[in-house]
């Protein structure tokens, strides 16, 4: 289950994390190690096993349709990297 540099680059792009060219091979070897560990799971036939997404067997609770949030824009935007006129700013996005 060896991960090559190209896979690291593709996955890093999907995850939007910049990985410098010189550290790509390190990540490739780290990822390979983890995936090798994970490959031990193949020892067991799980074709008739239901996947388990939650540790409890509870079901979703539903909330009443009530508005009880107040405007806290100032508090939230006080910790934002870049805001103007109430908007969060990002580099221009062209569509």
């Amino acid at each position, binding site marked *: 289950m060896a991960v090559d540099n190209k896979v690291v680059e593709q996955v890093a792009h999907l995850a939007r994390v910049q990985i410098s060219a010189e550290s790509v091979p390190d990540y490739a070897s780290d990822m390979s190690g983890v995936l090798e560990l994970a490959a031990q799971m193949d020892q067991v036939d799980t074709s008739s096993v239901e996947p388990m997404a939650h540790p409890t067997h509870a079901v*979703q609770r539903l909330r009443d349709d009530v*508005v009880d*949030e107040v*405007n806290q824009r100032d508090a939230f935007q006080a910790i934002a990297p870049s805001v103007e006129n109430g908007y969060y*700013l990002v580099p221009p996005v062209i569509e």
Partner: protein
Amino acid sequence: MQWETVIGLEIHAQLATRSKIFSASSTQYGAEPNTQASAVDLGMPGVLPVLNREAVHMAIKFALATDAEIGRHNVFARKNYFYPDLPKGYQISQMSLPIVGTGTVTVELDDGEIKEVGLTRAHLEEDAGKSVHEEFHDATGVDLNRAGTPLLEIVSEPDMRSAKEAVAYARKIHSLVRYIEICDGNMQEGSFRCDANVSIRPAGQEELGTRSEIKNVNSFRFLERAINFEVDRQIDILEGGGEVVQETRLYDADKDETRSMRSKEEANDYRYFPDPDLLPVHIEEELIESLRSAMPELPDARRKRFIADFDLSEYDAGVMTADRRTADYFETVLDKSGASAKLACSWISGELFSRLNKDSLELGDSPVDAERFSALVARIHDNTISGKIGKDILDKMWSGNDDVDAIIDKEGLRQISDTSEIEKMIDDVIAANPDQLAQYRSGKDKLLAYFVGQVMKASRGKANPGQLNKLLQEKLKE
């Protein structure tokens, strides 16, 4: 080569809940940027989603209205991608186990043909925020007020064969969601948005052609144009020996064309997986039954009833059931005024609608509600006033608070139906117009209208027109 067009629609209907799907922020349209974005909507660290009961109920109502399967065990999944209007880096949506499964929608086309369109599924999801590009120099602004607004994404089978069919289907869904009051249908505000998957194939071929997905269509008129443009574009490509690329295209209403949306085009891998912050939603039979028993009569059934019970024409029944408010209004007027369905219908579709149109008002905002309007129609029906005076009175009711009877009394507009009183006015008019009388008697029948007008004028419009006509004809013959 004969080409066949294949269209499937994905409609995003914004659900008319008060609060968002996973937070208690308001969904009200038009607030100042980011003033309706709570910690949950902003995707702040550590905060968690809790599902709005009403959104679930609305999705079930949609399933009931389209005879669709209900996902008794449905699951929320995360759709992972990065975009500034998507605060958590994922959209909470539904993937393999949606709340609404397959169903059918019956669509009536312009030529009267009935078409069945299959529903693939409908699922609950949260809306994203909005990006603003014009207001900032060298930056894009992000407003997350809309983030977390509940959407029902309604996906059809590729069952439509022309832009007209696609529009008829979209209109049907539009009317349905408003009818069952799960969406306000406001396309300008983005409460009802259509994406169209369009492909063409040689007539007779089974296999589907490569499709493109048209986004950003905010009116039915544009939907029709965008599809037609896209079909022509694909025919040109194929007939020129080229190949259609599967891509997302944006409709530009100003240029009336679609263009490729390259920014969203890179191969996406959304890495859907069940959202660990939300548990499976279980829908019990009791809930379905209680929602079913509270369902309003649906437009198709109501139209048929209006035709059968009230003897309305196919056309009038269609107009009176176009949306639930109109149909309710009509039934109230019918009930309270005691008038015939035809009279009630013509006053609603004529006088009421033209005034609403002129003032750009929705029926719900009409200055004259169904109760007051019923009283007016009742007075026309029982001959207290003529239709003409009814129109003047409606104008006064429109701008003031007086009811029909108050206006009639105040202005003395009660219709004159007393035979001797009308005869007296007729005698006076005949006496004052000897020349016209002579001409009429020598065969100029058209002058009858002149006499009617004169008597009407003398009565200040109050003479009962039916009676006046009958009496006048008798007198002129004498």
